[in-house]
C-alpha cells in the first residue's frame, strides 16, 4: 500500500473517531512540524507551542481535508505556515529588532552571534565548532524577512519541491524561486558580514 493511501486511511479513521489513528498521525508529522516551527520562530518553546496549536487545529478541521485537492502533507504544511504567519503578526509588536550582535534567547548560550562566529576560528573541539556554526546559521535565518525565511525553510530544510511550496505559500512558482534565491543570498551575505567583522 502506498504512503498516500495509508495516510488517507488514517485520516478516515481519525474522522471516524479512532484515537489510535490520531496518535499515528501525530507520531508521523510532529517532528516535521516542530522543525518548521523551530526554524521559523527561532526558539524551542515557541516551536513547541506552535506545534501543539497546529495539531489542535488539525484535529478540529480534519474532516475538512479533501483528498482530491492535494497531498495531506501539503495541507498540513499550509496550516502550519498560516499559523506561523499569524504568530509572526501577533508577536510583531513584542519583537525587538535587535542587531545580529544581540544576545540570543532561550536555551542558546548568552553570547553574541559574532562572538560565537569568532570562536569558530579557533575551536577547541570540532563538534563544538559545528554546533556553534549551526547556531549562527539558525540565528542568521531569524534575521531574514518572513517571506524569504519560509521559502528557504520549505525548500532547503524540508526538501519540498517548488510546486508544493507555491501551493503552500499561494504564490506562483516563479515568485517562490525568486524568494528562495533572495533568501539564500541574503543569508550568505549576513554570515559573510559576520565573518568579515571577526576576521
Amino acid at each position: 500500500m502506498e504512503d498516500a493511501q495509508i495516510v488517507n486511511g488514517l485520516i478516515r479513521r481519525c474522522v471516524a473517531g479512532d484515537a489510535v489513528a490520531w496518535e499515528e498521525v501525530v507520531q508521523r508529522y510532529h517532528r516535521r512540524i516542530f522543525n518548521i516551527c523551530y526554524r521559523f520562530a527561532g526558539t524551542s518553546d515557541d516551536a513547541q507551542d506552535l506545534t501543539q496549536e497546529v495539531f489542535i487545529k488539525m484535529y478540529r478541521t480534519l474532516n475538512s481535508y479533501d483528498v482530491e485537492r492535494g497531498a495531506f502533507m501539503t495541507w498540513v504544511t499550509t496550516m502550519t505556515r498560516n499559523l506561523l504567519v499569524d504568530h509572526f503578526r501577533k508577536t510583531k509588536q513584542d519583537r525587538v529588532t535587535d542587531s545580529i550582535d544581540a544576545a540570543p534567547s532561550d536555551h542558546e548560550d548568552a553570547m553574541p552571534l559574532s562572538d560565537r562566529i569568532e570562536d569558530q576560528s579557533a575551536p577547541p573541539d570540532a563538534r563544538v565548532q559545528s554546533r556553534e556554526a549551526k547556531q549562527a546559521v539558525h540565528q542568521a535565518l531569524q534575521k531574514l524577512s518572513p517571506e524569504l525565511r519560509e521559502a528557504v525553510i520549505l525548500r532547503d530544510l524540508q526538501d519540498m519541491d517548488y510546486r508544493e511550496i507555491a501551493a503552500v505559500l499561494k504564490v506562483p512558482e516563479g515568485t517562490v524561486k525568486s524568494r528562495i534565491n533572495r533568501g539564500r543570498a541574503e543569508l550568505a551575505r549576513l554570515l559573510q558580514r559576520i565573518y568579515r567583522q571577526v576576521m
Partner: protein
Amino acid sequence: MPGESHNGMQCNEFEALLFDALDQKLSGGKQERFRAHARACTKCGPMFAEVEAGQHWLKSLTEVEPPANLVNDILAASSGIQSYRLQSTVPTKHRPSLGERIREWVDSLLTPVWGTVRQPRFAMSFGMAFFSLSVALSVAGVKPTDLKQADLSRSGLRRTYYTTSARVVKYYENIRLVYEIESRVQEFKRATTPAEPGPKEKERDKTRKDNTSGQPEPRQERNYSRDENQPVLAVAPEDPPAVSVTTIRRLV
C-alpha cells in the same frame, strides 16, 4: 545585463538554469557552460556564489529533536487522550485484584477502629456487651446452629415471616382468652362473696351518704389542733437570732 553573453551563455539563460545547477540537475555540457559563465560574468558570478553559499549554510542545519513529551502534550491538548504507545511501553504496575482492593479498603476502615477497640476500657465494654448478648440469646432459645440452617432465600424469608406473624397472632389470641377467662372468674367470685370494706372507711362513707340536710360539709381545718375562734398571739422568741445588716452607702 540580461543580454550579456559570456562563453556562449547569456545572463538570462544563466538565471533560468540557476536552480537546476544548484539542484545538481544540469547535464555535463550545460554544467560546464554554466560554470564558465559564472566565472566570467561579474554580475552572475558573485550572485551565484552567494546563493550557493546560502544553500550550503542552510543544508548544514540538521533536523532538531523535538522534546520527548511533545507527542503526549499534543495528544492531551487535542484529543484529551494519553498516548497508547507510551501506555504500552511503560511497565504496568501490578493491579490489585478485587479481593485485594476490598481487603485494603476494609483494612483502611478497621485499622483506626481496631486501635481504639484494643484499649482496655473499650475491650471490657465490648466483652460485657458480647456476654450480655450471648446470655440474652441463650435465654431466648436462639442457637447459632439455627442461624446456620436458616433459609435466606426469598421464598424462605417470606415463609419465615408469615410463620412468625401467625405465631405472634396465635400467642396474642391465647393470652386474650386467658385474661377473659380470668376476669370472668373474678367477677363470678365477687358476685358470690361480696367484699367488706374497713370499719373507719365504712363509717365515713356512711355519714357522707346520710347527710341529707343540704348543708355544706364542714370545712377541713388547716390548723388541725386549734379552734376557729382561738386567737393566735405573736410571741417573741426568748433567744432572738442575731441579724447582721449590711449597709451599702452610696458615695455621692
